[in-house]
């Protein structure tokens, strides 16, 4: 009669926020007070604790709202959360490649890492090999010219110490 199934996505969000609030509150307790402040100063812990409380209350309200919703109203999975629940392997590979790029850039160097990972990612996204390689190469040259040459930003050269 009354649909009592809840939106798993909504409840999981509430749990995540509650967990985060508890962690923040726990860490805030250990924030040292160096004593350079003043008796009237609420201290460095006050704001983080207050915000943890706000997040805790917010997640509590979220739990309550989820429990009140009826089944038909709860099916509001966004396209993204639907995508997450039934993630295509290609999307997960792209995500993994992105993380490898971010981590690998300081080890392999910006140019080599971008050339390799960028080409593979473009290919996975349906771009031809020729265009992927030429586009990535163009981007690497462009970024080097702009940031390294013009703005004197030393891009990561990695453990191999490559010149580019």
């Amino acid at each position, binding site marked *: 009669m009354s649909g009592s199934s809840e939106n798993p996505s909504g409840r999981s969000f509430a749990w995540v926020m509650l967990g985060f609030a508890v962690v923040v509150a726990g860490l805030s307790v250990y*924030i040292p*007070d*160096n004593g350079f402040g*003043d008796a009237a100063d609420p201290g460095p812990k006050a704001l983080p604790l207050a915000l943890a409380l706000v997040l805790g209350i917010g997640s509590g309200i979220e739990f309550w709202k989820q429990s009140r919703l009826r089944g038909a109203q709860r099916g509001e999975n*966004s396209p993204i959360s639907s995508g997450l629940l039934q993630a295509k392997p290609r999307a997960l590979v792209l995500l993994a490649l992105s993380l490898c790029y971010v981590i690998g850039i300081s080890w392999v160097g910006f140019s080599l890492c971008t050339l390799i990972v960028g080409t593979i*990612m473009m290919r*996975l996204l349906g*771009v031809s090999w020729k265009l992927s390689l030429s586009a990535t190469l163009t981007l690497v040259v462009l970024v080097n010219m702009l940031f390294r040459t013009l703005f004197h930003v030393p891009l990561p050269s990695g453990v191999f110490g490559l010149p580019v």
Partner: protein
Amino acid sequence: MFAELFQFSVLGPWILAMLFGVFVGATPGLTATMAVALIVPVSFYMPDPNTGLAMIIGVSFTAIFAGDIPATFLRIPGTPASAAATLDGYQLSKKGRGGFALTLDLYCSSIGGLVGVGLLILIAPQLAGFALRFSNFEYFWLAVFGLSMSAMVSAGNTRKGLMSAALGVLFATVGIDIVSGSQRFTFGQVELMSGLGLIPVMIGLFGVSEVLRYFFQGSATDGASIPAEDGKMNGRTVFRSIWRHRNTVGKSSVLGAFIGSLPGAGADIAAWAAYGLAQRTSKNSRNFGRGEIEGVVAPTSANNASMSGAWIPALVFGIPGDAVTAIVLGALMMYEIKPGPLIFEQNPEQIGSIFAIAALTQLFLIPCGFLGIKTFGWILRLPKGVVMVAVLIFSVVGSYALRNSVFDIYVMATFGLVGFYLESQRVPLAPMVLGVILGPMLEENLRTGLIKTEGSLLEFVNRPICMVLILLLVSTFALPRLVGRLPMKKKERSEVVSQENG
């Protein structure tokens, strides 16, 4: 003096500097401050001081506008001041109206800048005197007012908007506490002692999360593909839109100039405040965040107006309104222009030049801005896969470039994942950015104020400007609710219903 500005020796470097500003502003990770800092040494080689001044002023205004270009087309704010423009500009871009949105943006930036310059010329000393009456207590309420916008920009989900703002303020506490010197949430990492950088956080939340969304949605319809016909913008349509929203342009420009005149409150705060105010007072408030034109007009008018406003305390008292003006003040001193109360009497010619340059820059902004929009639009006609990977690469480099720190890339990646997850839960990201920007201002001024008053909160409410700010805060929340309870005319009711039915 005015005629001298049109000589080729002045005009040439001036326009080139503005084009440089467009380029820097449109590149995520490069800020307007960086653009000005890079142009200042070049300007010293110019034989004529007017040329140097024109280059510096020109680059600052164009960089602020240009940040709206990637914000609209790619959802990556080029500068912090452009974050507000992503909300509706990007939505318009998804509907194939990115060119229209940016053209509107460009003209509104120009108008906002002109209004700001007008206020600068007419009432600089009076406004500067008023701005100096702001102390910790007033800044605290200003931050609260700004944060209250997070409820307004939450597209109907106030609770999640406030949670998002709370998260933003929480992330802003990472680092060394400015009042007591204690380390908060640094986990012993040296890189975290100066806090999480605003640029990597913004790039991660808006740009990287969008790339991740594209990965998971495949070739879904959303994304900023630019149809070929979008380049043919109808000027009449743009001007008609500006005329229809002239009140919003005017209000946002004045608000932006006022906020810019407050030391420490920059274009980013001005843009958000104008956006929130426009949403609150608009008849189409429900459309904000979904491609509402007022959502483009308000922040873009305000952020350029605030650049002019920042000159007010700078010229009159030598107190820079923002980081860009701080660099410019240093440059002015190299030209032997000493800011202060007597500047209008001692340097009338140079002041006149500055005013003329600032006003003409708003006009030259239009062709330079068009060039930037066309160039960017052309790039976006490449296959979607190429564009998204390019966005990722520039996001990484942009995050790294500010502090030459690989750690900032990790911050960007983390916030990319955070933004992706939160959006999947329909949590708006704009309030989080507001929280990161305004959190330090709120906490520092509250605690410093309490120290000054030895714990008494009375001073926070009994000062005249504080009372005005509290009244503004209450009225922006209460007034629309009161108006909503008034009986609607039949025609208005049917309009609202048809809007809701989309």
